[in-house]
């Protein structure tokens, strides 16, 4: 389980980007002949390591450098400097042999052939990854079973819905049973059912086949459901690398207590207690309170509630990861402004 499969050291990448000029007609004409560019550093020395079988969420706001890192790790982009070792390969220099070991899905791009039936694309990838008939049929049956592909196999890709296509995309990228899978927004635009099916499938291959998965997404539901470890990147720098739970503990400033009671035992005490918190929702004897963790201790409050009324239902919930991420981005923004 602890065998290292990815090692990224001091990874840097710059891009040339055009400088925005005035949008009047004369400037547009000048731009045809002469356009000014500036060099923007996208990655400022990224470091991390990944062990076999880990399921990692690689997160960050738009333009943080997530996709650039993924594309460097898959060998698509060539880094300006730094050292990258994945399964003993340098991705951009040993591309041919390396690609037998990885799979990738980019949610906004398709690896299937648009005009031909899905099965034809699968057969093509069978030959591309040099699989024999037995290996291919076993994998195909596995995907048909887990992703319910049987209905779509003989339909041209152009006729599939986004959810159907995405299931096929994932199957095509995992046909050769890669050791590492890079997923860039694999559930983008999907409905709840399709998302759940894909999440279940990814969970299965991660557990059963010990496939290492690096997931980039803006859907925090994917992360909460699938990833134990997250790497958070902002402006090309890693700002957090560790357990998802610890990340939450670090940034979660409040919790919610939802409860319902039949009758009050100590009305005065109850009223005094409730006044201290923000009431998010109140319907009859049902309350939803927001507890500021910097001021209050949750177990203590729960005890006070239980003492002051006859509780029939009580629930403590943490804010969704999305709210946590919002807090983190705000925090990062604040640091940026200060510096």
């Amino acid at each position, binding site marked *: 389980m602890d065998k290292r499969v990815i090692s990224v050291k001091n990874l840097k990448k710059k891009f040339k980007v055009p400088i925005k000029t005035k949008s009047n007609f004369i400037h547009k004409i000048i731009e045809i002949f002469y356009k000014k560019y500036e060099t923007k550093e996208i990655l400022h020395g990224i470091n991390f390591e990944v062990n076999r079988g880990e399921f990692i969420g690689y997160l960050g706001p738009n333009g943080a450098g997530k996709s650039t890192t993924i594309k460097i790790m898959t060998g698509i982009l060539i880094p300006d400097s730094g050292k990258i070792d994945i399964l003993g390969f340098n991705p951009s220099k040993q591309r041919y042999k390396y690609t037998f070991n990885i799979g990738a899905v980019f949610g906004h791009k398709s690896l299937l052939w648009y005009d031909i039936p899905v099965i034809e694309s699968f057969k093509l990838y069978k030959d591309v*990854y040099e699989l024999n008939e037995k290996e291919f049929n076993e994998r195909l049956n596995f995907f048909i079973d887990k992703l319910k592909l049987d209905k779509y196999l003989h339909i041209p890709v152009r006729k599939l819905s986004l959810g159907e296509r995405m299931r096929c995309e994932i199957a095509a990228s995992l046909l050769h049973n890669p050791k590492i899978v890079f997923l860039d927004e694999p559930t983008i635009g999907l409905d709840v059912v399709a998302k759940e099916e894909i999440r279940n499938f990814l969970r299965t291959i991660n557990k059963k086949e010990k496939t290492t998965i690096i997931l980039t997404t803006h859907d925090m539901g994917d992360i909460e459901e699938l990833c134990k470890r997250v790497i958070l990147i902002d402006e090309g720098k890693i700002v957090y690398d560790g357990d998802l739970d610890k990340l939450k503990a670090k940034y979660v400033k409040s919790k919610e207590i939802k409860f319902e009671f039949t009758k009050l035992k100590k009305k005065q005490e109850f009223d005094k207690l409730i006044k201290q918190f923000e009431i998010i929702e109140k319907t009859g004897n049902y309350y939803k309170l927001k507890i500021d963790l910097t001021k209050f201790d949750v177990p203590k409050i729960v005890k006070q509630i239980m003492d002051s009324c006859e509780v029939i239902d009580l629930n403590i919930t943490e804010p969704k990861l999305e709210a946590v991420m919002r807090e983190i981005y705000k925090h990062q923004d604040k640091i940026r402004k200060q510096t």
Partner: protein
Amino acid sequence: MKRTFKKYLSHARCYFNETTAYKIQLLASLLWYPIMLGLFAMLWNIVYTLRGDNLIGGLTLTETLIYFGLVRALIYIRIGKTKTSRVIIRGRLDYELIRPTYYFIKSCLREFVKSLVQFAAALFFFFIISLIFGWKVQTNIFSLILFLISIMLMFLLSYVFAEIMSILTFWFKSDNPFTWLFGGILRFCGGELVPLSMLPLWFATINNYLPFKYMIATPIYIYLNKYPILESLQQVGLQFIWIIILFLILSIIWNKGLKRYDSQGG
């Protein structure tokens, strides 16, 4: 080796399925050939009648019509533009780079398969029309074999040249300016518009040092038996040398381009 061959054969199958997916489009492009040839025949009949000569640029009227019959067929496999520019712009190169395949083999195969159906059909039309109108040339089996080899080399040369223009997209965001510019030059210097032997000698001398005539005129002159055997061999050899030179240039530009590739989207 067998597995590698199978890999590209499988690609060829998909390219073929893709090409034949839109049958009406394919049929329309096939019907264009006899229409164009009819128009050329009318035009050159007028030219020969007005000039009153049997020979123009060393070609009889029949030879000129055969020349244009072959030009119209060969331009299907004379690649003027490859898909690579769009592959780069739309970021689809990402998936090409993460597969255990060589991009240029696939790209070349794609262009070949894409043009093969139309080329074969045009060639079929050409031989039918030749039979109907009795267009015959004094040729021999050696010239015919060299003609076929020269066609293959012509395809490869034009592919490499078009691919060089396409990958300039890494720098210029499009290959259109180059395909327009060089497309025009290629049409003229390659002998697509006027047979090269009808052009002045000084032009032919300069043209001999450029790759364009090897991309269309060379196989036709070999078919018309206008070169002595040794010169035919020399012409085929020059086609081969140009492929090697341009492929080296392509490799250098490709490696430099990949460093600049920013993978649009995402």
